[in-house]
């Protein structure tokens, strides 16, 4: 049996008015690095809280390590590690005290599983006697990860571990996760950053409580149904508004300096030339159009429009 199983989970808040998870089912294989990708408010944290036995679902069953999340929560808590999205360690205790404290709560010691956290802990060791509240964001993240790992969990749940962390620390963090994965720990991680999705083995795209798709990032991108074009002009905003008015455009989203578009009719390759001509005539300077490979973000937007008709 897979270590993490969600079976038709539904969770609502405020008497059913707010939908956090709607009929969510997926499984995470042993030793997998699984990503839950979705924007803020998509329901990622609710799923984490259900899996870590902090929240009871309205409907459906969840199990971790073959144990039922409702009934065997005590056993689950002993065997999983959870790092909440918000820094949740004692800010008025030092780095060392926090580690010792959580080790003791799990009936363990810092020394017992030292090898597991060694690589990460070495980086914050110089600050052993500094209070956790006085650490930088990246340091806090490392300490929290150490605390979540201190009892050698079999499954690690990381809820938005890289939110609010600088680019370098984010990269370091993902490297650490890969090292942990090599030690056989199943990792479930959530993130709102689409670029991080590529670093996971399998991902679930989630939006307003619904799973849009679950697959490897590569397959999700490959499944992009139509050719995707990137359009650029000097006045991006004007380009965007004009493109949106055109009838042959199926979707159109701003993407940094570029505007990504798909066309309704993909049978005729020369359509893009015609589009180029017309827009240049309309006075767009430095106009440029090219076919590109979609990214996870394109896939996400495309799946979202498909599901919600936007």
């Amino acid at each position: 049996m897979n270590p993490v199983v969600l079976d038709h989970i539904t969770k609502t808040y405020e008497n059913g008015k707010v939908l956090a998870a709607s009929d969510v089912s997926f499984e995470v294989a042993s030793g997998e690095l699984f990503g839950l990708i979705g924007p803020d408010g998509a329901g990622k944290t609710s799923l984490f809280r259900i899996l870590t036995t902090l929240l009871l679902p309205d409907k459906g069953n969840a199990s971790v390590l073959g144990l039922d999340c409702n009934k065997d929560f005590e056993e689950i808590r002993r065997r999983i590690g959870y790092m909440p999205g918000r820094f949740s360690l004692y800010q008025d205790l030092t780095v060392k005290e926090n580690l010792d404290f959580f080790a003791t709560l799990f009936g363990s010691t810092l020394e017992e599983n030292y090898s597991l956290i060694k690589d990460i802990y070495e980086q914050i060791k110089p600050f052993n006697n500094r209070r956790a509240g006085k650490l930088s964001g990246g340091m806090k993240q490392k300490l929290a990860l150490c605390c979540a790992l201190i009892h050698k969990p079999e499954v690690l749940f990381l809820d938005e571990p890289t939110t609010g962390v600088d680019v370098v620390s984010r990269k370091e963090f993902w490297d650490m996760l890969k090292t942990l994965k090599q030690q056989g720990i199943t990792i479930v991680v959530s993130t709102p950053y689409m670029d991080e999705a590529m670093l996971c083995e399998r991902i679930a795209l989630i939006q307003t409580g619904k799973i849009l798709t679950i697959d490897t990032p590569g397959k999700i991108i490959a499944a992009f149904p139509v050719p995707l074009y990137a359009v650029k002009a000097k006045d991006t905003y004007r380009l965007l508004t004009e493109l949106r008015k055109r009838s042959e455009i199926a979707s159109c989203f701003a993407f940094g300096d570029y505007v990504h578009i798909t066309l309704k009719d993909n049978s005729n390759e020369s359509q893009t030339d015609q589009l180029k001509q017309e827009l240049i005539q309309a006075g767009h300077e430095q106009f440029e159009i090219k076919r590109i490979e979609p990214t996870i973000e394109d896939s996400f937007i495309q799946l979202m429009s498909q599901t919600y008709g936007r």
Partner: protein
Amino acid sequence: MKVLRYLLQKEFKQIFRDKTILAMMFAMPIIQLIILPLAMNFDVKSINLAVVDHDHSTYSMKLLNKINASGYFKLVAASPSFQDAIQYIEREKADVVLEIPMGFERNLVREGQQPLGISIDAINGTKAAIGGNYLLSVIGDFNQQIPINATGFKPMGVIDLTWSNWFNPLAEYKYYIVPAVLVLLLTLIGGFMAALNIVREKEVGTIEQINVTPITKLEFISGKLIPFWVVGMIVFTLGLTVAYIVYGIWPVGSFLTIYIFAGTYLVALLGFGLLVSTYTENQLQAMFVAFFFMMIFMLMSGLFTAVDSMPGWARVIANLTPVTHFIKVIRMVVLKGSGFADVKWEFLYLVLFACILNGWAVYNYRKTS
């Protein structure tokens, strides 16, 4: 057991690291005990009196001299008319106006009776009532000494009253209030500190991390209650010491009884704090809810006013707070030396409160929402 020990260790570390809280916890008992009993003094000493003497006779002079000599009154004005005198009350210059009508002496001697007018500013109820009573007793005394009464025919069998105040011979206010302030201290520590502490874990999010550990409900709650129980007992001891050093109040009854009660009471109050924390989400809410109940506890418990003088419904509420019972016991043991047998019912009440409040709180404290 090891987990609990570590929890306690962590909790004490946190308490001793928060310098503000620490200072408050130990400065509070000392300052409250020194300031409150001195400030909250209901012995009314200087009542401002305005007099309207329409008679200007020997008798009226004698009466005024007597009032002045009592030491409780300060003559602020002698006005020609009542209208003039009442203005002193309106301007808060005087508390009482005494009006002696024309023909005071003549009527007293001839008719044997004469009404007097007293007007009292009742904005400050206590001062008005006590001032009025003082004035009445001085006038009554004067009445006795009027020659016609003093030397004249006296009906037989007059009952002469004389009294003494037991357990507080000089009826000093400090004996009444100091034991109550001791109770106040335990109440504040128990009711606020515990509630705010647990809610803070919710607010900061640390409870989320704690909740995914295998730690049990009982361990977590004991880990929270025991440190504050210890702190409360230390503060209480400090309070007893201050009461002795500053006021010379040394409990007449046994310390064992006092500590047994203080300990039980603190458990009940910590349970109350815990209960508040399970119903609130952040420190502001907890503070507000706890404060609301604390005010009721303070005002209705007999801390400042006697429970016996409350209307029936209020007495029921008063009896439903643990504070009332504890104040009663502390006063009995400290001033009167009551033994455990005298207060066993109060003890049962406190145990009951402790069980109900803690039981409810533990029941309501959930690790999963």
